[in-house]
């Protein structure tokens, strides 16, 4: 059943009112501001904002959250370029060329390039989302519990592939995430697990409490610990208006890079379970490989900025493809969106386009509005965001702390939520101290929570006989490719290590 035109037009009409637009623009503004402050990032802002949007109309609430997500990817480039202190891992790639260019006295040229390529990548990704999600949703209905269990298994394999340089710490983070996802009543039988007879834990640990705790409070505690180290910018004064002008020619010369990075980011975003950092790294690496001035990369090359920003921003639109059609979030920010959608009575999944088609197209319109305001606010506020990036942490963190508490309280109207948030804040602090990847932990927690139900359903439907999975080709393809990918990456990592070892020993021999 294709979505009819009047539903699409109705949805577009729903989004075009003052109330909705105001909240979307507000979201973008918050996103850019939060992104501009070193140490804060989009997922943090969304974690805190989700409970605050409970009392808005569904469209305004979700539009605002998407606005924050989009705004923060633009904002993230600001501290990366001006201070060389990226707020998120993915904007670290932006800093590679952004900071050197700023040092040459052209900070605004770098910022403008980041803004334009970010919005371009984002728009590309959104266009893909708008066109493919309805058809995919129709196919998604054919995917049963077995297929869903396999797709989530595939995502889990992907995060295991990307657990970072220290596989042990990555596994520890993921393992803990899965373990804590099991808190609550077992699906079906309803046996309580790790609830200690606390009624409030029967539905499991809430993502809002865990997310705000680990992602935000943990970061704040870490910043308090490091408060001795001051960020000092050593930027020379700006080289004047002309040097900072970014002409159409500059943009066009980066056109191919933007397109390439946008495509990479879109593809990565559409894959459940992996995030924008990989997109930025891949986009940047490929741009460097394809560029004529590859040797200039890292010295303030515009193309480098464009490659990183277009890639990490184009993740945010296509991220919603698995989210809306299958109910599986593509990254941490999207996981919070699932929560927000359910709270507003919208169940992501294949029936969404039939049940709430109008709302979805209204949301798409809100995304376009968000992109336009991203461009407008970003362009007008360029000078101001530079100042925001220098707001002292002694002002930022107390405010954030207060917001954390408020968010945790609103999410359940219960003290338990706040207590959990604080506990997970302390856990997050120690994870950072021990360099255990927090994002891996949160994603494992989210996926673990989602995996259990389809897995239980699959076991019941197949009588626990894995052989019966053969009847589900989609499931077979996803499970096998997950396993293959994981063993390939492990093998490659091992052989790289061996090579590194051999080369050091041969170096020793030759000397």
């Amino acid at each position: 059943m294709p979505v009819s035109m009047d539903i699409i037009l109705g949805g577009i009409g729903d989004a075009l009112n003052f109330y909705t637009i105001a909240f979307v623009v507000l979201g973008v503004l918050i996103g850019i501001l939060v992104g501009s402050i070193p140490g804060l990032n989009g997922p943090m802002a969304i974690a805190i904002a989700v409970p605050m949007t409970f009392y808005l109309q569904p469209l305004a609430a979700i539009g605002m959250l998407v606005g924050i997500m989009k705004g923060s990817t633009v904002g993230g480039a600001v501290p990366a370029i001006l201070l060389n202190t990226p707020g998120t891992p993915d904007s670290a790639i932006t800093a590679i060329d952004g900071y050197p260019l700023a040092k040459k006295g052209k900070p605004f040229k770098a910022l403008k390039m980041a803004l334009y390529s970010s919005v371009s990548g984002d728009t590309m990704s959104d266009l893909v989302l708008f066109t493919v999600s309805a058809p995919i949703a129709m196919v998604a209905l054919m995917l049963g519990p077995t297929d869903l269990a396999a797709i989530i298994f595939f995502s889990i394999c992907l995060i295991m592939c990307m657990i970072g340089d220290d596989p042990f710490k990555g596994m520890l983070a993921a393992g803990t995430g899965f373990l804590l996802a099991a808190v609550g009543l077992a699906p079906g039988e309803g046996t309580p697990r790790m609830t200690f007879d606390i009624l409030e834990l029967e539905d499991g640990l809430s993502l809002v409490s865990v997310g705000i705790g680990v992602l935000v409070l943990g970061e704040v505690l870490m910043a308090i610990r490091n408060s001795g180290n001051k960020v000092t910018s050593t930027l020379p004064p700006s080289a004047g208006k002309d040097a900072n002008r970014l002409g159409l020619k500059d943009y066009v010369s980066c056109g191919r890079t933007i397109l390439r990075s946008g495509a990479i980011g879109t593809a990565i975003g559409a894959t459940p379970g992996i995030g924008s950092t990989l997109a930025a790294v891949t986009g940047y690496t490929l741009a460097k490989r394809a560029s004529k001035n590859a040797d200039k990369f890292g010295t303030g090359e515009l193309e480098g900025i464009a490659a990183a920003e277009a890639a990490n921003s184009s993740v945010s639109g296509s991220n919603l493809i698995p989210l809306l059609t299958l109910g599986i979030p593509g990254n941490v920010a999207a996981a919070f969106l699932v929560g927000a959608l359910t709270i507003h009575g919208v169940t992501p999944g294949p029936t969404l386009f039939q049940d709430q088609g109008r709302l979805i197209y209204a949301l798409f319109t809100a995304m376009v509005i968000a992109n336009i305001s991203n461009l407008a606010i970003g362009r007008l506020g360029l000078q101001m965001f530079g100042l925001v990036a220098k707001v002292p942490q002694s002002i930022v963190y107390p405010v954030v702390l207060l917001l954390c508490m408020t968010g945790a309280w609103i999410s359940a109207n219960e003290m338990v939520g706040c207590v959990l948030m604080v506990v997970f804040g302390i856990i997050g602090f120690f994870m950072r101290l021990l360099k255990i990847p927090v994002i891996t932990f949160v994603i494992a927690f989210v996926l673990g929570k989602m995996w259990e139900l389809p897995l239980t359903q699959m076991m019941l439907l197949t009588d626990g006989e894995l052989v019966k999975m053969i009847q589900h080709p989609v499931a077979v393809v996803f499970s096998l490719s997950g396993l293959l990918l994981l063993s390939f990456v492990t093998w490659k990592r091992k052989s790289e290590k061996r090579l590194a070892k051999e080369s050091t020993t041969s170096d020793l021999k030759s000397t």
Partner: protein
Amino acid sequence: MKQLSKTFLLLLISGMIVSWSAYAAWTPEESIKVLVGFKAGGGVDTLARVVSQKVAENTGWTIVVVNKTGGGGSVMAKSLKKAKPDGYTIGFAPGENFTFNPTINPRIGFTLHDFTHLAAISVSQCGLFSMSDKPWTTLADAIEAAKSGEEISVAYQAPKMGMSMKAIEKVFGVSLKLVPVKGGNGGVKNVLGGHVDIAWGAGIQAKYVKAGQMKILASCEKERIAMAPEAPTVRELGVKYVNLDAKFQFSAPGNLPADIAEAYVREIRRATGSKDIQDLIANKLSLKLIFTSGKELQKDLEQSLTEAQELVEFVKN
């Protein structure tokens, strides 16, 4: 004569005062909290909000709806029990929160009798449904098919439904594949995609039934449901333990003073009498309109507590 009329006048005035004070016995002086045990935006929450708003409009009371989610409504029930019985905290929940939940988990920390139950305003219209192209007319046919070896899967979204399915299995001596799903939408999605044969639905399936895409195999209530009056109840098919009977009701902490309870019952009755609320309940939420309060409601709840205990006992032994 003069004296007499004076006395009469006094009597009249005092009579008016008495009757007036009996009528407006209790008026809240601060804001009222209505606790809801489910997420904002869901069916229970919508109903609570709409009725509360109407009561507020009619009376000028300040009413705030607060969602206290968790444990299938039990978190809310526990905090309602702990609240002061002063009329400023009441709750809105399906009756099974107070009857079924403590039956399956005796350590839950509350019983049906810890509350003053005010008024029930609607009752569920739950049925078992499948795609229309299945060869069965009623649940009995599906069970026959299962008996002759066909694998039949049934999706359920709440513990009471799972328990009821086990009772059905036990009575007919048949084994079905019971698959837990999340929310009514989980059942619809899996039946539409052909992953599960039959599912429980409390109203979400209505539009597919109307379109002829799905059919109701049995009613899971005491009576046949309005959506499909031709489908027999599971009780008619011989399983007396199955009666979902989720009555949506307002309750207050135990020992609520009688004048406060009276004021609430009166205002809830007045609010649910309005056309738009009746339309929401019957047409949008596919529930049945009822109004029971006081002793009658207490009797209904005792009845459903006994039924819940019988169901659990039958399945467990």
